[in-house]
């Protein structure tokens, strides 16, 4: 594997300060911490969206889930690899989050964690592959496709944009920027769609005009990948 290895995998630093275009275990922990904060900040908004289309608990579920994730990764050894941290987060999400979003996000994290394997540091190509794998696993578990008004509507374009940027030679920062933009566009694209999965099915055409709460939370998860946000 042609991965850029970190000289010191135990350095607890956010992305740009690590070796360029690679992330290590502490960077992943920092990422998960940012998700926790971001989700908490948007908890009420997510729950409000879900009250329209689902059973009105998405923000609460996600907040509880990522709080649990923050706690579980503190118990991991300081030198835990990105793969270990992400897989642990995934397993915790499956168990801790109610509704369908827990198993779905959990599946995505576990799949990404498997791609990361045991490497101490992951590079751009692996990151692209991890995102792709997360999207694929989530689509399989949720039996959904892009356009079904789901998490996938934000995740799949983000993964594709990241991979395309990475193969064009963009640095990590650039790859993340296009991924966030793609996730945002994907999230917004759910507004005019008819829900075809999950509880929003019962809304039928009345689901048109509302953002999918899953796509919104997924956008937040992608956005949290940029340090400092």
């Amino acid at each position, binding site marked *: 594997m042609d991965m850029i290895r970190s000289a010191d995998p135990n350095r607890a630093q956010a992305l740009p300060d690590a070796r360029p275009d690679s992330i290590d275990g502490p960077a992943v922990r920092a990422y998960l911490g940012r998700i926790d904060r971001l989700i908490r900040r948007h908890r009420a908004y997510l729950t409000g969206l879900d009250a329209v289309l689902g059973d009105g608990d998405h923000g609460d579920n996600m907040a509880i889930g990522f709080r649990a994730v923050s706690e579980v990764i503190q118990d991991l050894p300081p030198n835990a690899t990105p793969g270990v941290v992400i897989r642990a987060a995934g397993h915790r999400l499956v168990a801790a989050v109610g*509704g*369908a979003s827990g*198993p*779905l996000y959990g*599946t995505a994290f576990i799949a990404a964690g498997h791609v990361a394997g045991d490497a101490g540091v992951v590079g751009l190509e692996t990151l692209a592959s991890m995102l792709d794998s997360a999207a694929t696993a989530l689509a*399989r*578990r*949720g*039996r959904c496709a892009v356009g079904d008004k789901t998490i996938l509507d934000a995740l799949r374009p983000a993964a594709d944009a990241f991979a395309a940027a990475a193969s064009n030679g963009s640095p990590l920062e650039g790859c993340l920027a296009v991924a966030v933009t793609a996730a945002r566009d994907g999230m917004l694209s759910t507004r005019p769609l008819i829900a*075809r*999965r*999950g*509880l929003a*099915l*019962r809304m039928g055409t009345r689901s048109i005009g509302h953002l999918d709460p899953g796509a919104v939370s997924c956008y937040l998860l992608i956005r949290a990948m940029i340090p400092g946000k």
Partner: protein
Amino acid sequence: MSDREELRDRIAALESDRRQIVEEAQREADAMFAQYQLSQLLATGAGLQELAGMVLVELMRLAEASSGAIWFQGTTADRLRLVASLGPLANDEELGQASSVPAIAEVCTPARGWTVLGLGDEPPLGVLAVAPEGGALDSEGLRVIQLSRHELAVAFRSAQLREMLDRERQELTAIVEGATDAIVQVDELGRFLRLNPAAEQLIARAGAEAVGRRCADVFDCARLGVHDPSGCPFLEVVATGEPITDRTLDVRDATGRPKRLAGSFAATPPEPGSATRFTAILRDMSAVKALDELREGFVATVSHELRTPLALIRGYTETLLHLDLDPETRRDYTQRILDTTGRLGTLVTEILDIAQLNANPVVLERVPVRFESLVARLRGDLAMTGSDDRLAVSLSRNLPLVEVDSTRIGQVLENLVMNALKYSPADRLVTLGASVESAWLVVTIEDEGIGVPEDDRQLVLEPFHRARNVRESAMPGTGLGLYIARRLVEAHHGELRVSDRADGRPGTRVTFSLPLQRSGRAARERGSAAASSAAASSTADAASAGSDGRPPFATGTRHD
């Protein structure tokens, strides 16, 4: 094979096993998640139709089908009904006609791409048919559906029962709401839980105001003393658990008006987890009670009124027969017999009048009459008894003609004026007035007598009811006069009422209205509309004077 090769093969085999195990675990996780999502949909509490439509979309996705249909059993019949269908192969007309498993199998053949699955046990409660577009169905998805088929059947059945319950509840509500009998429900402490509109009307109180209050307070049982707590039918049912099929009780409504209620009381079987409720179905028997009292009163009064003069006549006659009296005393006694027979005659006439009034319709011989001539006739009659000098008449000039039965209205006038003379001191005047208000002639008779207490004003217009203060005085009377007068005025489409004097002094004012003769009215309207309106506004009743053909002080619908 070298050891090394053997080792490599074993590693490869282990690796393949691992992959298989991982794949198997993934499939299980997929299936569990799919079932979880399905069960979330099933728990939405939607009605059968909506639920089936929603679930069909999910099932078709699971099976990777492009067409699908769900049939489900009706609540009573055991034939299957198409409840949802989707996709290019789903011809509703064709699918809808299939109402049994074999019939569905005949339409949804494997040759046409259909796979048919039963939902629930054998025989199935429902059927799912799915067909792919081009390719094949997802066997993994079908497996999930197979695993969920009992859950699906149960969910559909409960959706159906829920709908049925909703419908029944709505029907029941409509019946209760629409019932003319009052239906009230109380808890074991006698607090109102529910009342239907008839009950609200009965207790003259909005349901929201009554709910939560004890029925004994609302009905004012304690103050009324109609029953001690042990006599409360509700508490009796609470104590014994036995229903009461027929019980009469006297209560008061919110306005304090006495009400006689009759009905049944029973405990409602408690729902699990809630306390027993008690339901009463009550009918307002006040009208029946009033009628009963009226009848009793009639018989008692008539027999009393007939018996008293008869006893007098008998007494005087016996005295005349058996005693040797001086001529003056004999004259006196004979005169008394004559007077008494006169009273008897009046009573019999009045009773006959009532019988006639109750004939429907009352026959009136209406002719255009000058009201002044009726008054002149009355004055002539009064002159015979020497009481004409107590009658002050004040009529508006040029009263138009009224179209009435002059005998009957003469009788009304005589009755009212005689009443006024009778119940006021001998040195006081009785004033008779008449004026025009809109299309009505309004006649007033005012006296300075003992008056009619407010509570009795409506009642004195009913047969045999005499005002309290009159009953307490020794004044003879049948209690029929005002009633007859009212009925006669009403037969003319007018109205009669009893009120205070216009000037506020003690005494009584009786007012009645008569419709003006059409031609007279027309002439009058042509003549001076201004004068008419001025006349109308000069009286206290002007506010209600209408041009809609109702008497000027019409307050109700009595004459309609």
